[in-house]
């Protein structure tokens, strides 16, 4: 299989989530790439390079996987790497505290004939728990290189580099399962003729377990080569073992692991409950967990993102830096050289590339999104989200989601576009659709949130009405969707990683990476939007569009001027909100109108970027239906809220 490739040898990192895989990646490559260690935000593969002894290696970091048989999308992505790449070495990273639980996957990798190096990471914390490991013995038992490591402090890094450089594939010691199982596996091995990346033994077991990708692969390769007999045999065996095939395989593997670990692990008694575990319990108990959540929302979102990010930082960038130092020269330059009116408008006019594109993106949106991503990465690194997930699971079930969906929903408060991408980690199509719709409808992104908080903060009552109303819409529409959409309700399960102190470097890297990908993805759209708006203004199309919307806007009790804000809202959610800001400053809106406008605008259609991602992820049909529904919902909610506020005189 040694294809004639000029590229450098590949080293693939695999392992459960939360074992420090990405830390290993960063240590090896010295790169600043996405470090993601909770299930859900990263379904991508990071690539980096590393030089060892004068030779360059390509390092691939895969999403977390629990076994060779993928169940979730992340796992499928990770396994695909193993099926398609031709690795020089596969580095399996496991958590020293949970050897027995994670070793079965090492066995599967070895069984698949892959060149495995085992990194037993986090041995320092294991020692703190009173766990002593004899890794030399383990290495002997497994027949592959085993390295003890504390990767975040680079302990074991040299050994790992050495092991990668020295790696020589040796025939592995086969692990033997129960005789009856072995017999069945043998029977299949004899019927497989093609060449596969994974060993025939591993392929046979995966075939028995009905792994879709493998079944398809084998069907292609074995077609016309006794494939019928193979499927017939598989059918016979799986029927014979219908009661407990998966279980037996798992149990057999564990039996082998126990043998491998004999005398490797010694556990002494540990003392007391550390503070981390106490805090963890408080986070998971609804009585204490709810106040903690409120604190996180208040300080993290309201104070830090809303106050510091959208207030102080924006004031500094927009009000000071741009207003005083950057804008004047740009405007001067434009006035001097861009004499044609259309050109001036394109660059520095009301909707110009500079005014609406770059200045907005850099001065207004970036500080807000940046502070949000900082908080998000910080919380992510501590392991708070899985705890939040189990806390809200019961509530989320009512709206057709499982606690797992908490991650895309919370991320939506940062950027709905990114969050929509992340919904693909949800397990059922039904969940993905509901989450996509709720993101499009009721979750304001941080840019919009920042502006709206600023807008409404002068009117605490309006802010309260806005919050409560959006929450109600979120729950009500979710509840309806869960009743209307067919399909089974989701099941919730999640591993709860130990709480830990966030690693500053890690948090910084995550924040910067997110900001970078946000910027790379968003800036072109900002520019695109300003060109469209500029063209609209120049040709008068903008006016006609506004005229179409104007009656609807009037119907919900708002002045016609607000229409512009709504049209803008489609290009960037925050444009719309910022448009309102101008109107409010010029005193065109009273409290009721302001609230109605803010609510309608928050609910109103997702921005262009999000809509494009919706099409990509859910298909054009679903995306368009959601789009129409959201538009109708936004205006009818606005109408309804307007009536209620006028009738009750709540904000009068």
């Amino acid at each position: 299989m040694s294809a004639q490739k000029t590229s450098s040898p590949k080293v693939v990192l695999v392992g459960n989530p939360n074992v420090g895989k990405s830390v290993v990646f960063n240590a090896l490559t010295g790169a600043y790439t996405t470090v993601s260690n909770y299930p859900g935000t990263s379904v991508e593969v990071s690539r980096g390079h590393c030089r060892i002894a004068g030779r360059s290696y390509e390092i691939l970091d895969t999403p977390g996987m629990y076994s060779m048989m993928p169940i979730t999308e992340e796992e499928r992505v990770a396994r695909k790497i193993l099926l398609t790449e031709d690795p020089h070495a596969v580095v399996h990273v496991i958590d020293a505290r949970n050897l027995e639980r994670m070793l079965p996957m090492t066995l599967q990798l070895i069984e698949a004939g892959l060149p495995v190096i085992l990194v037993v990471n986090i041995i320092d914390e294991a020692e703190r728990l009173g766990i002593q490991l004899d890794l030399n013995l383990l290495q002997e038992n497994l027949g592959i290189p085993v390295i003890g490591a504390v990767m975040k402090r680079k302990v074991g890094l040299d050994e790992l580099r050495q092991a990668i450089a020295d790696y020589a594939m040796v025939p592995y010691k086969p692990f033997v399962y129960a005789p009856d199982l072995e017999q069945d596996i043998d029977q299949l091995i004899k019927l497989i003729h093609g060449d596969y990346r994974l060993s025939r033994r591993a392929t046979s077991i995966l075939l028995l377990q009905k792994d879709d990708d493998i079944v398809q692969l084998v069907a292609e390769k074995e077609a016309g080569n006794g494939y019928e007999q193979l499927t017939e045999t598989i059918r016979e065996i799986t029927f014979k073992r219908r009661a407990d095939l998966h279980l037996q395989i798992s149990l057999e593997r564990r039996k082998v692991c126990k043998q491998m670990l004999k005398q490797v692990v010694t556990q002494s008694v540990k003392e007391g409950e550390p503070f981390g575990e106490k805090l963890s319990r408080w986070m998971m108990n609804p009585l204490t967990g709810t106040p903690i959540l409120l604190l996180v929302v208040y300080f993290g979102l309201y104070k830090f993102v809303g106050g510091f990010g959208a207030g102080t930082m924006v004031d500094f960038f927009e009000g000071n830096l741009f207003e005083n130092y950057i804008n004047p020269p740009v405007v001067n330059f434009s006035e001097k050289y861009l004499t044609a009116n259309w050109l001036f408008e394109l660059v520095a006019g009301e909707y110009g590339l500079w005014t609406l594109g770059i200045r907005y993106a850099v001065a207004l949106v970036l500080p807000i999104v940046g502070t949000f991503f900082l908080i998000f990465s910080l919380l992510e690194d501590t392991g708070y989200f899985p705890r939040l997930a189990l806390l809200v699971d019961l509530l989320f079930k009512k709206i057709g989601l499982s606690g797992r969906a908490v991650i895309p929903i919370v991320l939506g408060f940062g950027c709905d576009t990114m969050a929509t991408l992340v919904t693909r980690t949800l397990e059922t199509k039904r969940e993905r659709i509901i989450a996509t719709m709720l993101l499009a409808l009721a979750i304001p992104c941080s840019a919009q949130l920042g502006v709206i908080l600023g807008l409404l903060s002068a009117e605490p009552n309006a802010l309260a009405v806005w919050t409560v109303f959006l929450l109600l819409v979120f729950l009500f529409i979710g509840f309806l969707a869960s009743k209307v959409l067919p399909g089974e309700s989701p099941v919730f399960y999640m591993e709860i990683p130990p709480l830990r102190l966030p690693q500053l470097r890690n948090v910084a890297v995550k924040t910067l990476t997110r900001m970078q990908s946000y910027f790379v993805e968003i800036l072109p759209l900002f520019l695109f939007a300003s060109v469209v708006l500029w063209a609209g203004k120049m040709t008068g199309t903008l006016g006609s569009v506004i005229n179409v919307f104007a009656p609807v806007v009037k119907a919900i009790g708002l002045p016609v001027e607000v229409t512009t804000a709504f049209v803008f809202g489609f290009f960037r959610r925050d444009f719309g909100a910022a448009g309102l800001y101008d109107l409010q400053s010029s005193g065109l809106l009273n409290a009721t109108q302001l609230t109605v406008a803010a609510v309608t605008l928050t609910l109103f259609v997702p921005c262009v970027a999000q809509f494009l991602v919706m099409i990509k992820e859910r298909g054009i049909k679903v995306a368009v239906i959601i789009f129409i529904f959201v538009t109708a919902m936004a205006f009818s909610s606005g109408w309804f809220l307007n009536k209620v506020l006028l009738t009750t005189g709540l904000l009068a």
Partner: protein
Amino acid sequence: MERLSENAEEILESLWVMTVEGDNVGCLLTSLKVNSDSEELLELVQRAYVEVRDDRVYLRKEGRPEAQMTVRRHRLAERLTMDILGIAGDEGNDQACEFEHLLRQGVDTKLCTLLNHPTTCPHGNPIPPGDCCVTARQKGEPGIVALTELRSGEAGEIAYLAASDDKKMQKLMSMGVLPGSHVTLTQKFPSYIFKVGNSQFAVDDTLAREIHIRRPVQKN
């Protein structure tokens, strides 16, 4: 002695539920939907299981064991139809009513052992213990219960995973939640949180119900 008719069994069952478990003193003929000269009632009177005074039927001491076992059979049948066969709602009730009459001559004992001597029916009413339950308890056989039945803080060993959803079970297995593992339940609300080894997991009640735990043998 000949077997009681099905209708007679139903009367005993109702009497048990209303007078022994409930606080009624005797039952009105009308609420049992029988006449004083109904065949099934005469059958019971003949065996001195019940007594009819005016318009009320009373369960006699002699009838209590039989009534108790009838109720037991009915609730075991409910466990069978609803838990094992997965028939829900009214359909489950109807099927249980049919099944209970088949559970005689030791079949109830076998079913009870198969179900691991359950103490309540799916509606939460007590299942009167049979001889098999008493023996099992005396031998100190550990009970196997769903994870949902443990108290928080209680520990045990995973006995088996009921595989209603293959994928989910595989997921649990690949995370190391396997039969034979020692588990400690730490929290029951809003999700079930348990520890296996040094790892912690959260599952919802659907999944928790499918993880069956062998309780450690009580030493006393």
